[in-house]
C-alpha cells in the first residue's frame, strides 16, 4: 500500500486531481487524486456511499466537481456534459441502467448517435447492420433481440444495453468505467463480460471497475483504489494485497465471517408449492420449512423472479396450489399474500420498491403501518424508532432517516428496501437479489439478519445470482432453468459446479467445451462457503 501522491501532470490515462464534491450539506468526495492508466484495470472499492459512483459521474461529465479537475493524458478536460466526456473517449456503464422505454434495443444502444444518410434521414439498414454486428462481436446476440422494446427488457438485458452503449460510438473509447456491472448478471454473462474486459484492457483502454464482489476484483484488477467517506484511503497492487487488508481499508476494522450459519430448520412446513404453473414457470413444486433458508438459483430468465411475484400474489397462477402454514393460499393481490404472511423484497429497487421522493422513514415503515397506527393515526415516535433501528442495523449511510431516498447511494437504497421487509417480520420472507450492490460490511449484516430471522422461525426464500451467496446462505438450493425445476441440492451436495450444471442442464450438452474452461478462473475452492472461513474468502 502506498500513500496517494499527486501524479506528475504528464501521467498517461485519466486523472482526477484533488476532486471534491458536495451535495448541499453532504460532502461526497474530499480531494481525491487518482490516475487510471491505460491498459490496466483499476478497481474502485468502498462501502456504500463512499463516493465511487460520484467520482465516476464526475469523470464522465455528469456531475461537475465542487473543486479539482480532470485530466486525460495530462491535459485538462473541461467536462460540462456527458457529451464532452463521450467525445473524449470516456465511457461509463452506470450503476442503474437507463433505458428508453418505447424504442427498440437498437435505438437504445445508439441513442444520440444514430446512423444517418444525407440530411438527417435515419439509416435503418445501417442501424440494423451495426447492432447485429456489435451483438455478435460481443456475444450478446442470443440474449438480446435488437427489435425488442426497451420497456420489455429484463434487468440483465438492460445492463447489456448499457454495456453495448459504452462500447460503441464514433470515437474509440479510451477509458471505460464499469459501475457494478455484474449486480444483475448471472455467472454466465459475467464470464463473458470478464473476457470482454480483458480484451479491452489488452487494447490499451483504461478500465475502471467498481464492485463489491471480492472475487471479481481479484480476478480482474491490476490495481485497487479504496475510498472511505469520500476520501482516498489507499491504492494497492492487486497481487500484493489480501482480502482482509482491503476490508480493513474500506470499513476501518476487521470483519468476522461473512456467512453465519447454524442448522435451525424445523420440520414445520411453512410454504408448500405443488405443481405451480404460471406464464413463466411450469410445474414447480417446492417447500420451505420454518427456520430454513432455501435459495433459488438459475440463469437470467430462468423465471425465479416471476415465481416470486406469483407467490407474492402479483402474477396470476394458472394451475397448481400454494399452501402457507397448512392453509391453502389464494392470493389475488400482493395485499392478500402479505396478510397471509408473505413478504417479498423485489429485485428492482427503483422500479418495484422505492418511493424515491419520500424519506427513509416513510420507505421503511410502508408495510408496517398497521403496527404503528392507532385508529388510523400513525405514531410518529414509534415510526421513527422503527426506521432508526433498521437504519442503524443495516448501516444506512445518510444524514438522517429524514433524507429522501433519492439522494442515497445505490447500496444504501437497497438496504432501505430490505429494512422495509425485515421490519415487518413476515412468516415467509422472499428476498430477490437482496444484496445487489451492497457492500461487504452490510452484506455481512444482512446475512446475520437472515440467520437471526431463520433462528426465530421465519422461512426464507432467497433468489440470488451470486453463487457464493447461494451456497453460503442456503440450507437447500433449488435450481430453475427455463421455468422448470431441474434439481434440488442439499447443503452438503451444493457446489458451484453442481448448481451451474443444473442451471444450464439441457443447454449444456453440445458446447460444453466452450464454456467449461472459462469456469476455472471463477470457480472457488470447495471450502469457499463454509461457516468459518473469514469474510467469504475463497482465495
Amino acid at each position: 500500500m502506498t500513500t496517494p501522491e499527486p501524479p506528475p501532470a504528464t501521467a498517461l490515462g485519466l486523472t482526477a486531481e484533488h476532486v471534491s464534491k458536495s451535495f448541499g450539506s453532504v460532502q461526497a468526495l474530499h480531494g481525491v487524486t487518482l490516475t487510471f492508466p491505460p491498459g490496466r484495470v483499476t478497481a474502485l472499492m468502498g462501502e456504500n456511499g463512499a463516493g465511487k459512483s460520484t467520482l465516476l459521474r464526475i469523470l464522465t461529465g455528469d456531475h461537475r466537481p465542487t473543486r479539482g479537475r480532470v485530466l486525460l493524458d495530462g491535459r485538462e478536460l473541461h467536462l460540462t456534459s456527458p457529451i464532452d466526456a463521450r467525445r473524449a473517449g470516456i465511457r461509463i456503464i452506470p450503476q442503474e441502467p437507463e433505458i428508453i422505454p418505447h424504442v427498440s434495443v437498437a435505438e437504445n444502444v445508439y441513442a444520440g448517435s444514430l446512423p444517418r444518410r444525407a440530411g438527417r434521414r435515419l439509416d435503418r439498414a445501417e442501424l440494423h447492420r451495426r447492432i447485429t454486428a456489435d451483438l455478435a462481436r460481443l456475444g450478446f446476440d442470443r440474449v438480446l433481440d435488437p427489435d425488442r422494446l426497451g420497456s420489455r427488457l429484463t434487468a440483465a438485458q438492460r445492463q447489456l444495453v448499457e454495456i453495448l452503449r459504452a462500447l460503441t460510438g464514433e470515437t474509440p473509447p479510451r477509458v471505460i468505467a464499469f459501475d457494478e456491472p455484474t449486480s444483475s448478471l448471472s455467472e454466465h454473462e459475467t464470464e463473458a463480460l470478464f473476457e470482454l474486459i480483458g480484451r479491452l484492457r489488452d487494447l490499451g483502454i483504461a478500465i475502471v471497475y467498481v464492485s463489491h464482489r471480492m472475487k471479481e476484483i481479484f480476478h480482474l484488477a491490476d490495481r485497487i483504489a479504496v475510498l472511505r467517506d469520500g476520501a482516498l484511503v489507499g491504492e494497492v497492487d492487486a497481487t500484493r494485497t489480501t482480502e482482509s487488508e482491503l476490508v480493513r481499508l474500506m470499513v476501518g476494522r476487521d470483519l468476522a465471517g461473512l456467512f453465519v450459519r447454524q442448522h435451525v430448520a424445523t420440520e414445520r412446513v411453512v410454504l408448500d408449492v405443488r405443481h405451480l404453473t404460471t406464464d413463466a414457470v411450469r410445474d414447480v413444486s417446492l417447500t420451505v420449512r420454518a427456520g430454513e433458508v432455501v435459495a433459488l438459483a438459475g440463469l437470467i430468465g430462468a423465471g425465479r423472479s416471476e415465481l416470486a411475484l406469483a407467490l407474492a400474489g402479483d402474477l396470476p397462477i394458472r394451475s397448481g396450489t400454494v399452501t402457507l402454514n397448512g392453509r391453502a393460499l389464494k392470493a389475488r393481490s400482493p395485499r392478500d399474500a402479505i396478510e397471509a404472511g408473505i413478504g417479498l423484497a423485489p429485485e428492482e429497487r427503483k422500479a418495484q420498491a422505492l418511493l424515491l421522493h419520500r424519506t427513509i422513514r416513510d420507505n421503511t415503515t410502508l408495510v408496517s403501518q398497521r403496527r404503528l397506527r392507532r385508529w388510523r393515526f400513525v405514531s410518529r415516535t414509534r415510526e421513527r424508532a422503527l426506521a432508526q433501528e433498521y437504519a442503524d442495523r443495516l448501516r444506512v449511510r445518510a444524514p438522517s432517516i429524514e433524507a429522501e431516498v433519492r439522494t442515497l447511494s445505490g447500496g444504501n437504497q437497497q438496504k432501505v428496501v430490505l429494512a422495509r421487509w425485515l421490519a415487518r417480520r413476515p412468516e415467509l420472507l422472499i428476498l430477490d437479489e437482496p444484496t445487489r450492490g451492497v457492500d461487504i460490511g452490510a452484506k455481512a449484516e444482512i446475512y446475520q439478519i437472515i440467520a437471526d430471522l431463520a433462528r426465530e422461525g421465519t422461512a426464507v426464500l432467497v433468489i440470488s445470482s451470486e453463487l457464493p451467496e447461494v451456497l453460503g446462505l442456503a440450507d437447500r438450493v433449488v435450481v430453475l432453468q427455463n421455468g422448470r425445476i431441474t434439481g434440488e441440492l442439499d447443503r452438503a451436495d451444493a457446489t458451484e459446479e453442481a448448481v451451474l450444471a443444473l442451471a444450464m442442464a439441457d443447454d449444456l450438452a453440445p458446447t460444453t467445451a466452450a464454456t467449461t474452461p472459462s469456469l476455472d478462473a471463477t470457480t472457488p475452492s470447495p471450502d469457499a462457503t463454509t461457516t468459518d472461513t473469514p469474510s467469504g474468502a475463497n482465495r
Partner: protein
Amino acid sequence: MSATEAPSAPRPKDRPEPGRRPAGLRTLVASVGGQNLSLIAALAVVVVLFGSLNPNFLGWDNIQVIGEAATIAGLLAVVQTVVIICGALDISVGSQAGLASVVSAMVFTSTGSSAPLGIGAALLAGAAVGLLNGAVIIHGRVNPTIATLAGLAAYKGLAQLVSGGRAQGFVLNDPVFVFLSRGKIAGLPTMIWILVLVAAAVHVLLTYTDIGRNIYALGGNDTAARLAGINLNKYLISAYALTGTVAALAGILLTARTGSGQPVSGSEGLELQSITAAALGGCALKGGKGTIGGTLLAVALLGALQNGLTVQGINSFWQNVAQGLLLVAAVVIQQRRNRERAIGLPA
C-alpha cells in the same frame, strides 16, 4: 457475529458539514418547506405592493372578500391536490360543481324549500359522479386526463339538460343558504370556515394517517405501492369520490352565493384554476408530491393578486398579462433557490 458491536464507520452525522445553516433557521425552513417559503415571499410582495397602493387592500373587510372569492376555487384546489398526489388529474371538477349547484337548487325547490334535502341531494350526486369517474378510470382503463375531460363535457351537458340551461330556483329566502353565503362565525365568513375546515381535514388525512401515507406511496411509485400491499383501486376511487363530494360542496356554495342553481355560469374554468393552484403550491403532476399547505398558499396568492389588480382598477387585459407574469415569476424565484442545473424538463 461481532460486527454489530464493533466500532463502525463514522456516521455522517458526526462529521463536520461545511455550508450548514444555523440550526434554528434550518429547522424552520425545513418545516415550512422551500416551496412554501417562496410562496410566502411572493404573497408578502403582493400584500405590501397593493397594501401600499391602497390601504383598504389590507382592511379586514377586504381580506374577508378575498377569502370568500377564493373559497370555491380553493375547495377544488384542495381536492385536486389529493388527486394530483395520486398521480392523476380531475378536469371535471368545475362541471361537477355546476351539476351539484343545479341539483341543490332544484331539489330545494321541489321539496318545498328544504335546505337539508337540497344540500344532501347535491352531495350525494357529487359523490356518485366522483365514483363514476373513478370507475371509468380504473375499470374502464381510461387515462384520468381523458376520462375527466370527457366528464367535463358530459357533466356540463347533464347540468344543462336537467336545468334546461336556465338558472334554477331561488334559495336566498332560506336561512341555511343565507348563512352559507353571508353568515359569519366568530367574525369570519361561513364560506371561509368551510374552506379552512375542509383543508384542515384533508391535511390531517394526508399527513397524520396511514391513508395519507399510502396515497403518497401510490402516487410516487405505483408498482412499489402495489407490491407493498396497498389496494390501489380502493384509494384511487375514494380520491375521486372525495373530489366529487367536495366539488358538490363548492356547487352548493355557488348556489348560495348566486341565489340560484347555475348549470354553467360560475363553474366554468374552475378546473384550470384548481390545477394552477395545486401546481403552483408544489404538487408534482407526476404524482407523489404536494401539500395542502402549499396549495392553500397558492390559492391565497392568486386570490390576493386578482383582488389587488381589481382594486387598482386594472383592466382585464392587463390582468391576464400580469397574472401570467407573476405566476412565472413566483416559480422562477422558487427554483433559483434550488440551484438546479438547467438541463431538460424541470420536475
